[in-house]
């Protein structure tokens, strides 16, 4: 389930979370019809009830736009990172082919839905789904994910739901124009290089400005001219001086401070890029930034959506809207989604974000409703308080890392039988460093939380220095995290960096003590 993101109108006073669910207006005389085939009328009928139920819980969402699509269209959307429109690139073709192949062979069911973080929030319902599945999808995507997009602080800060679609349309056209003008190969190569750095195209600590497409366009011209001038300034004066100050100590680095946003640095400072290339760097950077919150909130986001489809549909059943058949059907699918195979199981591939997220929100509700002494000790501020505000808070103000650090309870650790293993290169064996017992709760929780920290998941690489006086080579620095080395593909990525930079590039890997432990070097690309 692949979300994409939010924001135009921030309400000045966002409605306070409800203390308690509102009462049901009227019990229906009979449940909603439940044939296996859906129809437009039925989807609307279900949607009305789901919407009313969601409102009783005070879920704050963008307006919803439900769209029915075919499996093929679902694969299309799937392949272009879940967006309804995107620029063309072979890697999306690869993705599509892989998806299609798996789907046709029955290796994989398609995602039941895709939801796009936009305003209005677009949810795709697949034509093949049964009525019960459509209900599940609507509750999950149109109310679960949607409210998360609107509420979570990362999405509010990083993404602009109202303009993303417009921006992607613009990006698509722009890239197409470049292809026409400069040839498919040139654009493709350049995009490859940008993609290699896409994960390093985000300012982690600075909030981006929010611009509408019109502003973007208006500024583009200025930006092109200005950027070029700035680059020229940077490069013109210095080499000349270099001859005079040949012996001067390399005291001053450029940039003054290391910079973590590699793409931004390249966009602004790479000496040889043409204006269209700078614009493409910018496009890739902007798209990467849009997905940045999603990479950090997967567990929370899916957990939240899963919690709410579960809660909404169950409430509807209790209220007499749903038949037993519908319940059995979506529950089956729900159970599959939240299955967590234990370690060592053939199907095990890490922690299932649906399982963990769902369990955690359910657990928070339990702590509020029926806290044990242990819960009171661990969570004094929420134990025994109304659950709706507590959950709302847990959705709005965290990302996966802090969410787990804050809310993973000992009881859940016991239920999931979580344990931490330390893998130290210096030791011949792995060591079980903590398990789900009194001595280990904090350690397990901390480790798991850390596992979701983007900083530890992705290597920390920064722009360290540019040799302004000599060969103009760029030096990047990798700051090792727990002495973990870079993957061998680093040198391939460096080639891409060199292509963007236009001159030689080197990468230094620095360990905790500050010593350079490994160095890679790539010469300037042949122009």
């Amino acid at each position: 389930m692949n979300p994409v993101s939010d924001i135009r109108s921030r309400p000045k006073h966002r409605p306070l979370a409800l203390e308690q669910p509102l009462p049901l207006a009227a019990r229906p005389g009979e449940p909603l019809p439940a044939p296996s085939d859906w129809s437009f009328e039925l989807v609307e009928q279900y949607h009305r009830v789901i919407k009313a139920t969601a409102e009783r819980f005070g879920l704050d969402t963008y307006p919803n736009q439900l769209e029915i699509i075919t499996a093929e269209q679902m694969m299309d959307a799937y392949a272009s990172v879940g967006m309804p429109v995107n620029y063309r690139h072979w890697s999306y073709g690869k993705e599509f082919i892989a998806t299609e192949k798996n789907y046709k062979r029955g290796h994989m069911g398609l995602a039941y839905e895709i939801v796009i973080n936009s305003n209005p929030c677009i949810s795709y319902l697949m034509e093949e789904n049964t009525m019960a599945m459509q209900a599940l999808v609507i509750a999950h995507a149109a109310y679960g994910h949607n409210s998360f997009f609107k509420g979570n602080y990362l999405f509010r800060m990083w993404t602009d739901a109202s303009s993303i679609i417009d921006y992607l349309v613009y990006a698509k056209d722009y890239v197409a124009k470049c292809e026409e003008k400069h040839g498919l190969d040139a654009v493709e190569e350049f995009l490859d290089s940008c993609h290699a750095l896409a994960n390093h195209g985000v300012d982690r600590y600075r909030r981006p400005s929010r611009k509408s497409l019109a502003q973007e366009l208006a500024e583009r011209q200025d930006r092109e001219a200005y950027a070029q001038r700035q680059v020229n300034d940077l490069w013109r004066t210095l080499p000349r001086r270099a001859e005079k100050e040949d012996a001067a100590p390399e005291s001053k680095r450029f940039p003054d401070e290391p910079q973590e946003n590699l793409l931004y640095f390249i966009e602004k400072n790479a000496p040889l890029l043409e204006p269209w290339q700078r614009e493409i760097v910018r496009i890739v950077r902007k798209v990467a930034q849009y997905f940045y919150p999603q990479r950090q909130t997967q567990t929370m986001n899916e957990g939240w959506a899963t919690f709410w489809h579960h809660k909404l549909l169950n409430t509807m059943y209790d209220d007499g809207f749903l038949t037993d058949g519908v319940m059995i059907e979506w529950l089956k699918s729900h159970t599959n989604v939240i299955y967590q195979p234990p370690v060592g199981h053939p199907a095990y591939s890490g922690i299932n974000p649906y399982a963990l997220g769902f369990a955690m929100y359910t657990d928070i509700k339990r702590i509020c409703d029926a806290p044990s002494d242990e819960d009171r000790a661990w969570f004094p501020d929420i134990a025994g308080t109304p659950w709706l505000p507590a959950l709302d808070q847990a959705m709005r103000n965290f990302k996966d890392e802090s969410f787990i650090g804050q809310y993973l309870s000992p009881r859940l650790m016991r239920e999931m039988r979580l344990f931490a293993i330390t893998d130290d290169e210096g030791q011949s064996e792995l060591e079980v460093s903590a398990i789900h017992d009194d001595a280990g709760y904090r350690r397990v929780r901390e480790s798991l939380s850390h596992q979701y920290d983007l900083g530890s998941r992705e290597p920390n690489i920064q722009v360290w220095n540019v040799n302004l006086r000599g060969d103009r080579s760029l030096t990047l620095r990798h700051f090792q995290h727990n002495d973990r080395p870079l993957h061998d593909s680093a040198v391939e990525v460096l080639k891409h960096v060199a292509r963007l930079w236009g001159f030689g590039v080197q990468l230094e890997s620095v360990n905790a003590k500050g010593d350079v432990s490994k160095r890679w070097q790539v010469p300037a690309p042949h122009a």
Partner: protein
Amino acid sequence: MQQIIDRRLAGKNKSIGNRERFLRRHKEQIREAVKRAIDGRGIRDIERGEDIHIPKRDISEPVFGHGQGGVRDVVHPGNKDFVRGDRIARPKGGQGGGSGKGQAGDSGEGEDDFVFALSKEEFMQVFFEDLALPHLIRTQLAEVPEWKYHRAGFSSDGTPNNLHVVRSMRGALSRRIALGAGSRRELQELEERLAACRATLKPGDAVMAAEVKDLEERIEALRVRVKRIPYLDPIDLRYRSRIKVAVPTSKAVMFCLMDVSGSMDEGRKELSKRFFILLYLFLTRHYEKIELVFIRHHTQAQEVDEENFFHARETGGTVVSSALVLMEEIIKARYSPAEWNIYGAQASDGDNWHHDSGRCRELLNDKLLPLCRYFAYVQVAEEEQNLWEEYAQLLDANRHFAMRKATEASMIYPVFRDLFKKEGAKAA
């Protein structure tokens, strides 16, 4: 309440552009795969898609990532009986569970190839490119060239020139009968009664007069109603329905003649195969039914199946005329020129017993060429020997004879140039 939007009909195949870019990027591998496929396939099933394997490393997109090593903590679910401080042997292959995202699963799959299916059209595209076919020819081969209109019953709409008058009038007539029958029956009854009334009408009988008047009015009304039934209504119209059908005309036989003497190595055979495939493809566009006859020869000729034709290997000398003689015999026995369009395709490295070449020319000129629609000879070697020289004498007099040297696939097409040109002109 918002509307639910039905997008099913909009924007299919959005990924086509991306797919094209993907194929473009991996052209080399795809070319190779197509080449292998052609070598492995029978001539008849050349027109299929193909699974393409591309090594995973060739399509990976590199990003900075963590490698093995260093210190890290990984949390797993489902602890069975570990307690703190337990030590576990490091799993082999170094996949210590990934760093949170399912890397373990991924790397467990190993260096599998990325496999995907090339569609039939894409496959042919690559094949044609390899043969350096001009675009006009490509479209000709890719489409069914000839159409014929067939009668296919009647339809209720069409253009006026296809109007079937008799059929339409018949329809109108039956409609008029059907619609008017009830009214007319009633009319007849009333008229009979009227006549009876009139016959018994006495002057001054007011009741009777009133009835006569009433009957007359009703008769009048019925007459008007019957009259109002239209004589010809649009729903009566019938048009001759004609549908377009593709017509590959009748049947053809294609003779594949190949030298399999020792000097024909695998590479040359491969080249010959493409030559045969191209002719076969051309023929499939024009004929409904095509038979293939494979004749291989060294010093003796023999008819074989396709498998043996391409893959068996013989040694020894070469007598080309033996194949030509066999071809003529087969034609006489099985393929009457009156019924069959006969095409000949001969591939050889040009090597022949020198006394035989003259005989080959005579055989072709006197016996075979008069029977054939087209005969193409391709020499898959460079040096010109006496066979080449003898054959060259045939060129001027016989417009349906073509010969060419080909040492790589792209040189094959010119052999057929005249053949395609002629057909192209006809189509245009």
